[in-house]
């Protein structure tokens, strides 16, 4: 089998920890700040804004990168194929989103207020969401396949 350039399995735990801390900081601090419209209104950054950004804009994408590029316990060719299929599915989803983006923008710009647009862009307008979509597809199919093939028939 070809050598795979992935991080050791133990990095999954590092990624998981970063994901948990990032999620907590995002849910508790960053998302409420943005939704209430209290984000970036003062001239300089507050402690909450720094913590929120640390969680949402640094730890979340970092955890996604670590989780995407670290090995499973046994990383064999079936898992490699599963990774390729998940990547292909993610690419298809994002090409579809790219195709419908002008239509989506047309409605969002006309129907939503500029402040909503700003919040939407700040929370969901990041390309690293693609990593989480890939991760979700890969982990679900990994779990389903392992469950399906775990019984020795």
């Amino acid at each position, binding site marked *: *089998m070809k050598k795979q350039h992935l991080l050791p399995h133990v990095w999954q735990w590092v990624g998981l920890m970063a994901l948990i801390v990032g999620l907590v900081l995002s849910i508790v601090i960053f998302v409420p700040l943005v939704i209430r419209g209290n984000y970036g209104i003062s001239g300089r950054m507050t402690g909450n804004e720094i913590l929120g950004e640390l969680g949402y804009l640094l730890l979340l994408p970092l955890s996604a990168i670590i989780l995407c590029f670290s090995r499973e316990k*046994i990383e*064999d*060719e079936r898992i490699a194929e599963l990774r390729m299929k998940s990547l292909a599915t993610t690419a298809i989803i994002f090409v579809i989103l790219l195709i419908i983006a002008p239509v989506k923008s047309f409605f969002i710009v006309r129907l939503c207020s500029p402040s909503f647009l700003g919040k939407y862009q700040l929370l969901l307008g990041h390309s690293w969401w693609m990593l989480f979509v890939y991760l979700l597809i890969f982990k679900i199919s990994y779990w389903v*396949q392992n469950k399906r093939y775990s019984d*020795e*028939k």
Partner: protein
Amino acid sequence: MKNNIRVERARQRMSQQELAEKTGVSRQTINAIELGKFNPSTVLALKMSLVFGISVNEIFQLEEGD
């Protein structure tokens, strides 16, 4: 593609886990191959033939439509 892995395993009294360890894959992968749900690479097929001591052709056979 059909295969005789289960038959060969039974003949050599080998569990899926043992075969998995000898070929460097997971037990689930061996099960998926036995069930015909996953086609192994040439390298894995050759490793299996080495473990069983028979040729690849005796383990894997093409079916109609392959």
